[in-house]
């Protein structure tokens, strides 16, 4: 009887482990082509001879809070790689004190039924100097994301989407690479490293190519946009979202400015 109980317990544990391993797998094994094809849609192609663009800037009104300092002393490798004081990348404010980087800007609505070429090339996120590079970026549904560990220390890359498959993979060896394909659009998918709690990044996954991330001067550029009226959204990890409507004529380029209101703070950046 005891023997039967033991067999039962071990069998249960084994079955649970098998189920668990299945639950923890990512979408990385899905063929990129099929996902890309589904993302492309069946509508008309964008005519490059009439396409316009949206250029613009993201600014912040007021003084943003100072970025939180990071203590990396839990990992000697990170300390060695970063000799100067380190801070979170929450507010990437330009030298003018107004321009805001790391804001994801994309066409949220109005594209209709266009079809797009499958994404070419790969998106990449690198774990280097115990940071994610880039911190905010965009990619297409069906596009391959390459995840690299350039650090001589361990990282785990933990994606926490709501509409895609969550995954958490370890990369213990410097130079390790893995790939992942998101199967559904989602703005934004957060990444975190559970080993180094300060490491975080965000990716916007879209079923079209009209997105950009503002640079350190707050500038962004979305090109090859067909004529039409669109809802643009700007997303910031702390300041939330801002939307505005823009109408693009044939071969027209529009300037758009997004201005976020700074939260009340006692210290400034």
């Amino acid at each position, binding site marked *: 009887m005891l023997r039967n109980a033991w067999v039962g317990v071990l069998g249960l544990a084994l079955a649970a*482990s098998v189920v668990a391993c299945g639950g923890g797998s990512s979408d990385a094994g899905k063929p990129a082509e099929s996902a890309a094809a589904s993302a492309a849609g069946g509508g008309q192609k964008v005519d490059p001879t009439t396409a316009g663009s949206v250029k613009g800037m993201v600014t912040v009104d007021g003084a943003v809070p100072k970025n939180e300092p990071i203590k990396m002393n*839990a990992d*000697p490798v990170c300390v060695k790689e970063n000799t100067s004081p380190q801070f979170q990348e929450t507010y990437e404010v330009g030298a003018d004190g107004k321009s805001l980087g790391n804001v994801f800007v994309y066409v949220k609505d109005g594209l209709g039924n266009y079809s797009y070429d499958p994404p070419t090339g790969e998106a990449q996120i690198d774990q280097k100097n115990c940071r994610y590079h880039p911190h905010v970026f965009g990619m297409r549904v069906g596009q391959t994301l390459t995840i690299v560990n350039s650090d001589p220390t361990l990282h785990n890359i933990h994606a926490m989407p709501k509409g895609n498959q969550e995954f958490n993979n370890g990369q*213990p060896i410097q130079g390790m690479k893995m790939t992942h394909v998101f199967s559904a659009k989602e703005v934004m998918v957060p990444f975190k490293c559970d*080993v180094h709690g300060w490491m975080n990044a965000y990716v916007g996954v879209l079923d079209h190519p009209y997105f950009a991330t503002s640079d350190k001067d707050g500038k962004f550029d979305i090109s090859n946009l067909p004529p039409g009226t669109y809802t643009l959204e700007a997303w910031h990890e702390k300041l939330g979202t801002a939307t505005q409507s823009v109408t693009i004529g044939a071969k027209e380029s529009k300037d758009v400015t997004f201005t976020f209101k700074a939260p009340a703070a006692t210290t400034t950046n």
Partner: protein
Amino acid sequence: MLHRFSKFLAGCTVLLILAGSLVTSNDAGLSVPDWPTSYGWNMFTFPPSMWVANILYEHGHRLIASSVGFLTIIMAVWLWFAEPRRWLRWFGVAALGAVIAQGVLGGLTVLFFLPAAISTAHAGLAEIFFCMTVAIALFTSPRWTAAPANPVDDAMLRRVATATTAAIYTQILLGATMRHTGAGLAIPDFPWMFGHVIPDHWSSAIAIHFSHRMGALVVTLAVLATSARVWYHNHHYGGRGELTRPATLIVALVATQVTLGALTVLTQRNVWINSVHVVVGALVLATSLVISLRAWRVSIAERGLRTAESAIPARPSIRNPQSAIRNSGARA
């Protein structure tokens, strides 16, 4: 010797609970993404040079858990071959089953990205396993196996102490739910709640947090009631050191626990305060369990569960307080 070993195992389990609470407090639960391996290595050959940052907490927790599992195997085998009480032999096997299930739950919660239900179950089973080790240490103690001169037989104490133990366990489950649903700071002030006696707005997280605070109130009153009953009993019948000691200890532990709970909020979940709060919660539960089991001891013995005691001539127990007083007076 077996008693000493079981006490050692219970002590190691306290350390394991501390290690587990440090994992959660440091948000390190997924820092080792695979299980039962660690970054592809066998858990026991994972190089110490790689135990950096949060990995130290998660991997350390796994190693301590494995050690406790190994010690539990030894204890179960030891009980099986050395313990005359059949029910206690099977209790040792049950403890081993609990620690195996606990390990599987720990692995599942990692592989499924820390779902609140599994993580809470992991926390709840940890307390049950700890209680089992404490109970085994108690059942194997010389004082338990020897027949006391003046055994406690107080139905009211049994009821109050058992209800208190159940209330503490429920409170721990509430705390674990709060912890694993991220509701630890859902009410950010203390002793007020959003500046009021009762929160002026609600969400599921606030409700969980509020329940834990109310649970603390219930547990405090229950513990005071149990301790009061023990001291009442001691005052009338005397010689109740096996009850008055834990009854005093549990009041001190609850006072410490309430303070730690308040400080957890006031320090915005300081890692060590938060973690020690979990450990002291386990100690409150274990102390209450000891009081309950000692209160139930006569009843257990009378049902013939303690075969070792069956060979010892039965001594009169105190059932009626009045007669007890008379007996006490007669002896004096």
